[in-house]
């Protein structure tokens, strides 16, 4: 059933590239609205359908077809928000970058947990918190969302708020007197590098 859409998947890079040049928003001029909405829904369905498959855990034809209907319906209902998907940079190696990003993310999660565990268990409770601001080069909402999520799960940092070009971060270990701008830049830099490979 999914095979029917396979030729369509190949054209995603093209239309997304076009939309990037035209700086697409909902009130774009000579582009037929339906075309954009339609392809976004298809892409969202491709994200939602696997969730259904994981939930039912079978390949029963009845479940597969009902799942497809529900996935399309869910994507259609969330249409007003689907423009965030335009931020994905499509290129052949995208799967590789996503995998590397997930690996970095899980490693940071592990380190952050050990870090928090050590702080909690230490009798003196060695914390030195402050709220700092970090600049980001990611411009899209989706990119900033993923970066904020990453920072929240990194050792000792918690995203408090997101502005146009910077993130407000609660930092558990900000030793007074250290070079703050330099130290804070390193919080986001690593994730930003990997994220910028596949998201604007």
């Amino acid at each position, binding site marked *: 059933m999914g095979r029917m859409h396979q030729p369509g998947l190949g054209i995603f890079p093209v239309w997304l590239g076009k939309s990037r040049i035209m700086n697409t928003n909902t009130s774009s001029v000579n582009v037929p609205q339906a075309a954009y909405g339609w392809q976004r829904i298809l892409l969202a369905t491709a994200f939602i359908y696997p*969730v259904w*498959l*994981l*939930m039912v*855990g079978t390949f029963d034809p009845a479940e597969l077809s009902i799942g497809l209907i529900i996935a399309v319906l869910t994507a259609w209902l969330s249409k007003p928000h689907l423009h965030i998907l335009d931020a994905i940079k499509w290129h052949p190696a995208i799967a590789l970058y996503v995998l590397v990003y997930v690996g970095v993310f899980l490693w940071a*999660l*592990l380190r*952050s*947990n050990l870090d*928090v*565990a050590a*702080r*909690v*268990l230490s009798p003196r*409770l060695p*914390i*030195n*918190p*402050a*709220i700092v601001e970090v600049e980001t080069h990611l411009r899209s909402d989706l990119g900033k969302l993923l970066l*904020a*999520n990453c920072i*929240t*799960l990194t050792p*000792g940092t*918690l*995203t*408090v*708020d997101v502005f146009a070009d910077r993130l*407000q971060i*609660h930092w*558990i270990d*900000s030793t*007074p*007197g250290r070079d*703050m701008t330099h130290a804070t830049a390193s919080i986001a830099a690593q994730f930003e590098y990997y994220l910028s490979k596949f998201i604007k």
Partner: protein
Amino acid sequence: MQIIGASLILLGTSFLFLGALGLFRMPDVYNRIQAGTKATTLGSLSVLLGIAVYYPLWWPKLLLIALFILLTSPIASSTLARAAYKTGLRPYRAALDKGEG
């Protein structure tokens, strides 16, 4: 094999406990969010992995729960931190830091 699963579950609950202990010990709301979110995220993932060792056939739903926790837990904590900041709660010792800097 079963002993690996049991150890993973034990490790997971230990992290859940550390998260709750952080919630108990930390001096202000932001640090509590940090401890409460991070440790419990890895803790529950570890428990899920341990259960997956016991019941390998359940992996699709366990993976779904794991993905859900991994994606929503930082969002919940960030939303909460922002709400706390906007209601005017300032981090512990922030005034002191400003004075020294």
